């Protein structure tokens, strides 16, 4: 157990190094640099720059230096805990991401809790009331939840809101609260915007979880110990909750670690469609603008979370399953 964790932890810096090089390369891969894409953006809004201005920009940002130099400079800063300054936003990246981090985490956590709160009961009911109307209803719900791309749901929601109520459902704040300091009113405003993306994201999450929960529980319900308990006269619900449900939950719980990166990246598409001020759209924008430091930082954070997520999952699994614990 400890050996496993230590091994994983030792692997971490190696993986991070690989990922940092990897993210830097893929971000540099598109032709041109930030200044090229900036000039293009200017021209696309009808303005232009002369060569002197362009030269000045490149030299200000150090884009006229060789790639390896740029990488070393970047990674050097990151090792010092400094994510650098975004070319596009002209702001420290830590500050930029920080602003959006809270909202992203909140969205992720709300979705997480809501989908678990819905999925576990649905899975249990479906399994216990197998082949009843309720089960079929949830089965169909699950299939649809899985089959519908979330951005489709978001698009349709936008269209319905627009055509029925003539309102836009984009963003997370009303205009008067965008920049306001935190207050109860601002939180209330956030909640009036947050429910829709949470609902959309919950739809698919719930469907998937409920499907697994049902399958796992069915496996358990077929096992002899359940018959045994039943024969001993235990009340049905008490029995189900006490033993099979707990066992059926084990594999699910062990996957919680995998939610860690998803909390950050899971909402990317929906956030893009609904114009949410979360990290996902910022990554997308930094990639198209070739704002390499920002994109690199976000990708690196995602990687880190993914690695930690795997670790957490492995540990959870080992902890929940005595057989694995015994092995190491």
């Amino acid at each position, binding site marked *: 157990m400890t050996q496993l964790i230590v091994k994983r932890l030792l692997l971490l810096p190696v993986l991070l190094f690989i990922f940092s090089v990897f993210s830097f390369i893929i971000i540099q891969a598109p032709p041109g640099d930030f200044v090229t894409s900036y000039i293009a953006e200017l021209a696309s809004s009808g303005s232009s720059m002369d060569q002197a201005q362009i030269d000045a920009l490149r030299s200000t940002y150090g884009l006229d230096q060789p790639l390896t130099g740029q990488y070393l400079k970047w990674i050097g800063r990151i090792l010092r805990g400094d994510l650098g300054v975004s070319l596009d936003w002209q702001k420290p990246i830590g500050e930029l991401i920080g602003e959006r981090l809270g909202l992203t985490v909140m969205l992720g956590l709300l979705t997480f809790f809501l989908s678990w709160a819905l999925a576990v009961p649905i899975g249990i009911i479906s399994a216990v009331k197998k082949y009843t109307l309720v089960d079929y209803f949830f089965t169909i719900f699950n299939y649809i939840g899985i089959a519908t791309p979330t951005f*489709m749901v978001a698009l349709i929601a936008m269209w319905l809101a627009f055509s029925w109520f003539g309102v836009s459902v984009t963003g997370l704040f009303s205009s008067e609260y965008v920049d306001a300091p935190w207050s109860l009113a601002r939180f209330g405003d956030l909640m009036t915007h947050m429910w829709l993306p949470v609902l959309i994201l919950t739809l698919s999450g719930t469907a998937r979880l409920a499907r697994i929960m049902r399958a796992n529980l069915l496996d358990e319900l077929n096992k002899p110990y359940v018959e045994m308990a039943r024969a001993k006269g235990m009340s049905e619900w008490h029995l189900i909750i006490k033993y099979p449900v707990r066992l059926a939950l084990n594999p699910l719980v*062990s996957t919680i670690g995998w939610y860690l990166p998803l909390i950050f*990246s899971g909402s990317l598409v929906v956030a893009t469609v609904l114009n949410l001020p979360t990290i996902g759209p910022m990554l997308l924008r930094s990639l198209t603008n070739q704002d390499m430091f920002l994109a690199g930082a976000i990708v690196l954070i*995602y990687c880190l979370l993914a690695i930690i997520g795997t670790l957490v999952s492995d540990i959870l699994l080992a902890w929940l399953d005595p057989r694995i614990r015994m092995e190491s």
Partner: protein
Amino acid sequence: MTEQKPSDPSFGRQVMGNLTEASAVSYQPMVSMDEDASLAPPGADVHSEDFYLAPNWKLVWWRFKKHRLAVISSVIMIIIAIVAIVPGFFSTQDPHVTDALQSFIPVQMIHFIDDGAIRPFVYGAVGQRNPTTLRVEWQIDENVKVPVKFFTRGYPYEILGLFTLDIHLVGVDETAPVEVDPAAKEASAGPNRVSTSLHILGSDRLGRDQWSRLMYGTRVSLSIGLVAVAISTVLGIVLGGISGYFGGTIDMVIQRLIEILQSLPAIPIWLALSAALPRTWSVEQTYFAITIILALLAWTTLAREVRSRFITLREEDFVVAAKLSGCGQPRIIFRHMVPTFSSHIIAAVTLAIPVMIINETFLSFLGLGLRPPAISWGVLLQEAQNLQSIALAPWLLLPGLLVIVTVLALNILGDGLRDAADPYTS
């Protein structure tokens, strides 16, 4: 270590959706529709000799047939596959042809009964540009009935690049003379617009027929899914097989590779990779590259599964026997081992296709996948994702329905196949 785990942790990755939040359906079985389904052929006597003598595939088929939803799904998928093979036959117009005076025609209903007789037709439509809002407004003109014909001639199209045909499933007779009330032409800003053609799903901003575009998009999206899954399946089986069969250092290397790939947060990596695709590439090259990108990130789960099967199988008697009879390793792997779980692979592949389809849709939707003039479901949806379309032409969102139906059908089909795949176990 991880390999001996009865419950593979990679399971979690699939559950939580390694790729997109929309698409975590993956290689592994998740739920069975018919856990209790008997092995017996439908209606057959369980003890009949047929049952015991039947070959494996027959048992699978019998069992599959019992899963009614899956059967329906397979019919749907066959239809969609036929569309993908000959989109030209199903479309009514050339999907690339634009017509300035046919833009934003709403969905046209085909009416089947005309004056009590079965005589399919659509109403003509007259369009005018509103002088204030500059919006083109279409009005149905019930005086004009355009007869709809089946197996009619239309624009020529190629079938799989082999030969050219001009027969279409449905269409209107372009030469049919249609009179439009001249009074209806009045009071229009700009030129008059008259539609006497068939737009089952309406037309887009360039006057292109949305239905026909959907047919062609089906080909692209479906084939991307198939090709990507094919590549990742091959990769998964080969690498997983090698890893499981040989073990040792090579197993270690492949396992670490899988771990790294799985640790990569798919969405951003994927976005970055697509953004990094040389944009000098043609539409076809991009198409191919995207398929490969999809495949390269998707093989790991199958590889893990295949590996664990190999680990169990390599100690089995029949493998040892094959080894002792002097079979070459490739023969042992592909002749003896792989067939024992081929039905699982088929099921897994079926479940992987919808993931790929959604992934393509998602990439193109973000503008990082295919670009117009290529047509795919993602491109169609991307073109519908703007205020103009949502407010003025919501029918452009309809291709999304086909995405849902396809993914649904493939999922149910995959579940059905998987349940049927193990005829000897219950």
